[in-house]
C-alpha cells in the first residue's frame, strides 16, 4: 500500500498549477482495468480529478517523457518522481537530455509497485478488482470469488530488491525522505553466475529465444535515448525488425546491455514492459555488479555529472586481463 | 505450387543513359533479350539488386515500345546509389507490373492533354506522353510544361528537343528556376509558368507530377483557371515492399498506392485523408 494517495498528488499539482509554477502535469492516468495505468498529461484540476491515479500499479517511470515534454513550449512541467525514478532523472541530466529549468520535480515516496504479471499468474483470468489492504493483495475475480495474496510476493522483483527509498533529485519532497537500502538485488545475478557455463547459456537461450523484437525494452528505457538507434538504422543490417536467426536474437539484447552499461540505473522498466516476461534487467544488473567489482561501487544517476567507470580513466585502473580473473574467469 | 508474386525475373541492363547529374535512365531486357513484361502507362515495377535492396520505380518507357523497358532513376538512397554505379551488362531483378494506370484508352481519348512536370516528375509521365504521341490521332492538342532547377536537371532533354518538339500539335514549354548561361528559354517556377501560359479547361485533361510544393501550387493555379479536380490526375509515391497491397505500408486511408494507385484524380484524393 502506498503512503501517499492520489488526492494528495492532485492537491499538490493543482496548487502548483494555480500558482503558475507549472503549466502541465506529467502523471499516471487511469486505464481500462483496475491495474491499468497510462502515463499522461494534465492541465486542469478537473482532468486530474477525473483521471489521475496513484497506487500500487504506478510503476511507469516518467523521467524519459521529459525529453519530449521539455521540448514543448516555454512553461514548466510538473513531474512526480518515485525514488528510483529520480536516478533516471539525474542520469538524463548528466547526458544533457532535457532542460532542468523546464521541469518542476516533486519527489514522492514509494512502497514498491506490484507486478500485474505475478497477480495474473496467481489469480488466473477474469480479474475484476484489486485492492491492497493490511491483509495483502485482495483480488476479486469474475468467476472464482475473492483471493488474497501476500503483498511482498506480488511485488515486482525490482521492488522486492529495491535499491533506494531516497530521492536523489527533486525541487520539493512530499512525505518523508527514505534511505539507500542494502538491497539483495545482486543475489539474483549471483544465482545466474553460479550456473555452469552450459546452464547459463541454456538459461539465456531459453529466455532470449522468446524475444519478439518489439523493442518495448529499448523504447521505455531511460538510458536508450539515441535519436537514431543502431537497431533503427537500415544500413546496420540489424534494423528493428524480426529476429532472423538465433544468433541475432541474443545480439540485440547483448548490444543493448553494452550500450547502457554504466548508464543504466537499474530502474527495471525493461523487464516490466517485456511482453514475453524476459528478465532483461538481470543482464544490465550483471554489468553493474561487474563494474562495481572492478572499479568500486558506482550508482548511475546518484549525482548529476558523475563519470561512469567505463567513460572514466585512472592510472590505477585494472588491466583487462586482471579484470577477467578478478571476475572469476580464466586467463 | 502457385506462382509467387514476390518472385522476380532477371533483367539485364543493356544501356545506361546519363540524363542529368543525378538521374540516369536504365534500359532493361530479359536474358533472352525480350521486354520483361507488358505494362500500361503509369504502372511501376520493383527493381532490385540482391543484397542491396528492392524498390518501386515508374516504368518510364511507353507500352508501345515492345523491345525493352526503361527506368529513369534519381540517385537518392542506398539502392539508387548502387544502380547509378553499375555498368552495362549488369543483371538486376525485376517484377511487376504494379498499380493502376492512366486511363489512356478511356477517359483520355479525344481529349487535349496538358502534362505538367517538375524535375524527376517527368519520369512517370514519359510513358504516357510517348503513348499519346504513338497513338497521336486518338488525342487532341498536347501541351507539356516541364521545369527543373537548371537546364542540366531537365530529364529526357535530348528526347524532348529531338523528338517531342517536332511532333504535330505537341507544344513543349520548358522552364528553369534561375537564369543560366546558354539558356534562352523561360525562367521561373512551374506553377507561375502554367498560369502565364493559361489553358482553357474545355475538353482538357491535366496530369501533374513533381515535388509536393509544385503540385500544391500548380493544382491551385489550375483550379483558379476553372479546371475541375476531376480533370486533373497525379501519381503518388509511398514506401513500398510488396507491390501487391499486402505488406501494409503504402496506404492512404483504405487505398494502397501500389495497387489502387499510383494514379489518382484530385477529386479522388479529396476523399482520402491528407497523409501522403
Amino acid at each position, binding site marked *: 500500500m502506498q503512503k501517499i494517495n492520489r488526492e494528495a498528488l492532485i492537491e499538490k499539482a493543482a496548487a502548483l498549477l494555480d500558482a503558475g509554477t507549472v503549466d502541465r502535469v506529467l502523471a499516471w492516468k487511469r486505464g481500462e482495468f483496475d491495474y491499468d495505468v497510462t502515463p499522461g498529461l494534465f492541465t486542469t484540476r478537473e482532468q486530474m480529478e477525473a483521471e489521475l491515479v496513484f497506487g500500487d500499479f504506478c510503476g511507469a517511470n516518467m523521467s524519459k517523457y521529459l525529453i519530449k515534454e521539455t521540448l514543448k513550449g516555454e512553461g514548466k512541467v510538473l513531474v512526480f518522481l518515485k525514488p528510483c525514478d529520480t536516478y533516471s532523472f539525474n542520469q538524463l541530466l548528466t547526458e544533457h537530455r532535457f532542460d532542468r529549468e523546464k521541469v518542476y520535480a516533486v519527489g514522492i515516496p514509494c512502497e514498491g509497485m506490484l507486478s500485474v504479471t505475478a497477480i495474473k499468474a496467481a489469480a488466473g483470468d477474469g480479474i475484476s478488482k484489486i485492492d491492497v489492504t493490511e491483509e495483502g493483495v485482495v483480488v476479486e475475480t469474475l468467476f472464482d470469488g475473492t483471493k488474497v495474496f501476500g503483498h511482498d510476493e506480488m511485488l515486482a522483483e525490482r521492488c522486492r530488491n529495491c535499491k533506494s527509498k531516497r530521492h536523489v533529485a527533486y525541487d520539493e519532497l512530499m512525505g518523508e525522505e527514505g534511505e539507500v537500502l542494502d538491497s539483495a538485488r545482486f543475489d539474483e545475478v549471483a544465482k545466474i553466475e553460479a550456473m555452469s557455463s552450459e546452464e547459463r547459456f541454456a538459461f539465456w537461450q531459453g529466455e532470449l529465444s522468446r524475444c519478439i523484437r518489439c523493442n*518495448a525494452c529499448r523504447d521505455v528505457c531511460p538510458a536508450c535515448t539515441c535519436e537514431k538507434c543502431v537497431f533503427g538504422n537500415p544500413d546496420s543490417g540489424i534494423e528493428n525488425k524480426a529476429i532472423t536467426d538465433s544468433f541475432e536474437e541474443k545480439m540485440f539484447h547483448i548490444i543493448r546491455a553494452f550500450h547502457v552499461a554504466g548508464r543504466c540505473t537499474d530502474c527495471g522498466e525493461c523487464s516490466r514492459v517485456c511482453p514475453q516476461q524476459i528478465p532483461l534487467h538481470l543482464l544490465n544488473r550483471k554489468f553493474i555488479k561487474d563494474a562495481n567489482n572492478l572499479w568500486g561501487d558506482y550508482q548511475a544517476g546518484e549525482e548529476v555529472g558523475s563519470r561512469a567507470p567505463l567513460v572514466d580513466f585512472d592510472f590505477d585502473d585494472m588491466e583487462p586481463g586482471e579484470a577477467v580473473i578478478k571476475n572469476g574467469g580464466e586467463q | 505450387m502457385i*506462382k509467387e508474386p514476390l518472385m522476380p525475373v532477371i533483367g539485364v541492363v543493356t544501356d545506361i543513359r546519363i540524363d542529368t547529374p543525378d538521374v540516369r535512365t536504365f534500359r532493361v531486357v530479359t536474358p533472352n533479350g525480350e521486354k520483361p513484361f507488358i505494362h500500361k502507362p503509369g504502372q511501376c515495377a520493383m527493381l532490385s539488386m540482391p*543484397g542491396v535492396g528492392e524498390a518501386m520505380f515508374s516504368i518510364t518507357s511507353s507500352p508501345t515500345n515492345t523491345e525493352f523497358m526503361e527506368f529513369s532513376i534519381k540517385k*537518392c538512397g542506398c539502392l539508387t546509389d548502387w544502380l547509378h554505379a553499375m555498368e552495362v551488362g549488369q543483371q538486376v531483378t525485376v517484377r511487376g507490373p504494379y498499380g493502376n494506370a492512366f486511363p489512356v484508352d478511356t477517359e483520355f481519348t479525344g481529349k487535349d492533354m496538358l502534362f505538367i512536370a517538375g524535375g524527376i516528375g517527368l519520369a512517370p509521365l514519359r510513358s504516357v506522353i510517348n503513348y499519346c504521341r504513338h497513338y497521336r490521332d486518338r488525342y487532341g492538342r498536347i501541351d507539356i510544361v516541364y521545369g527543373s532547377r537548371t537546364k542540366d536537371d531537365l530529364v529526357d532533354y535530348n528526347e524532348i528537343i529531338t523528338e517531342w518538339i517536332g511532333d504535330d500539335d505537341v507544344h513543349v514549354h520548358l522552364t528553369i528556376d534561375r537564369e543560366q548561361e546558354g539558356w534562352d528559354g523561360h525562367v521561373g517556377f512551374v506553377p507561375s509558368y502554367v498560369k502565364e501560359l493559361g489553358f482553357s479547361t474545355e475538353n482538357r485533361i491535366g496530369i501533374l507530377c513533381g515535388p509536393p510544393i509544385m503540385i500544391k501550387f500548380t493544382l491551385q493555379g489550375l483550379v483558379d483557371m476553372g479546371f475541375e479536380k476531376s480533370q486533373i490526375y497525379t501519381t503518388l509515391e509511398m514506401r513500398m515492399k510488396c507491390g501487391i*497491397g499486402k505488406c501494409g505500408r503504402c496506404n492512404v*486511408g483504405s487505398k494502397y498506392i501500389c495497387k489502387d494507385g499510383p494514379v489518382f484524380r484530385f477529386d479522388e484524393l479529396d476523399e482520402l485523408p491528407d497523409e501522403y
Partner: protein
Amino acid sequence: MRAISYAKLDTLFAKIAETHGVYLPVEGKKGTDYKRWEQGDVYSTALNSNRSPKDIFFPQSENLMDFKVEGKSIEIVDTRSESEDFVIFGVRACDVKSIEVLDRVFLKEPADSYYENRRSHAVIMSMACTKPAETCFCKTFGIDPAEPMGDIACWVDGEVLYMNANTEKGEALLEKLEGITEEASADAADTAKALITERMAKLPLAALKADAFGAGKTQKYFDHPAWAELSEACLGCGTCTYVCPTCQCYDIKDFNTGHGVKRFRCWDSCMYSDFTQMSAGQPRLTQLERFRQRFMHKLVYYPENNDGMFSCVGCGRCLAKCPIKMNIAKVMKTIGKENDND
C-alpha cells in the same frame, strides 16, 4: 458430434500425428505458446497463448528465395517446398477468426504462395472457451466463443472432449479418428456452451460496441482531436502489433550470408518510425500518425476493403501487453463516443 475422454487426448494427438503434424498450445516457463506436439507434451487450457497461431501461417521471419550473385550475373533460387499436412489444435474462437482476417489479405489475388501453401495444408481444430479474461471482447466483433469456427470445433465438458466438423476437411479428419472416438448427441456440448455464454455477459467489456466504426468513416475519425491524447504516451514499440493475431504488415529484406543472398520476409510494425520512411520524405511524421494508422486500419480501412469485416478479433492480447496500457478498447470508447446518436 464425436467424443473422446479428455484423459485420452494423447491418444488423439498420436492418432492425428500418424498422418499430420500436430501443433497445440503448451504451457512453458512463462506462459503458453504453440509448439509441435511430441509424446509427453500436455495441451494447455490457457485462454490466450503469448504468441497467436498467426505465427504458424505467417512466421515472424521466413526465407522467400535465394540469389546467387556472380560478377554481373544473378541466379534466382526458388527455395519453396510443399508444406506437410498439419493440424492446429486448441485454437480459440477469436484466433480462428483472425486467420480469416489474414486469409483475406494473403489469399486475395495475387495470392501469397508462402501463406497459401501452409494454409491449404492446415486443419484447424478450434476450442470453445470456458473461462474468459477481463481483457476479452470478441463479442464486440460478432465472435461467439461458444461456437468457434474452424474445420472442427471442440468443447470440453468435465472429462469429455466433444468435436464437431464445420467443414469437409474437418469431416475427413473426424472420420479418420472414428476408431478412437465415440458418437455423441448433437446437444452434448450444450452445457459447456451455456456456461461460456453466461460468463461472457459478465465481462467488463461486454457492452463495447463497434457500431460506430466500419467502412466510410475515414473522414469522420481521421482528424478526431482525441488522437493526440490517446497517442501521447505511446512508446512507438511494436508490442501491440507483434502480439496481435491479425496484424500482417511485413518487411522484405536481403541478408548477405557471404555465400549468397537470402531474401527474407519479417514482421514489421506500423508503429515504427521507419515503416513509411522514404529517401524522399515521411508521410507519417509523428507517433500520432502511426498510432492512428493502426487503429484506423483495424476499424475503418480494413472493413472498407473487406465487406465490413473488422480486423480486430477482441482477443485482448494488446490490452494485457501494451507497456503503457493504451489499447483498441480505449480508442473505440474515446473516438466512437459521440457517435451513439447519429
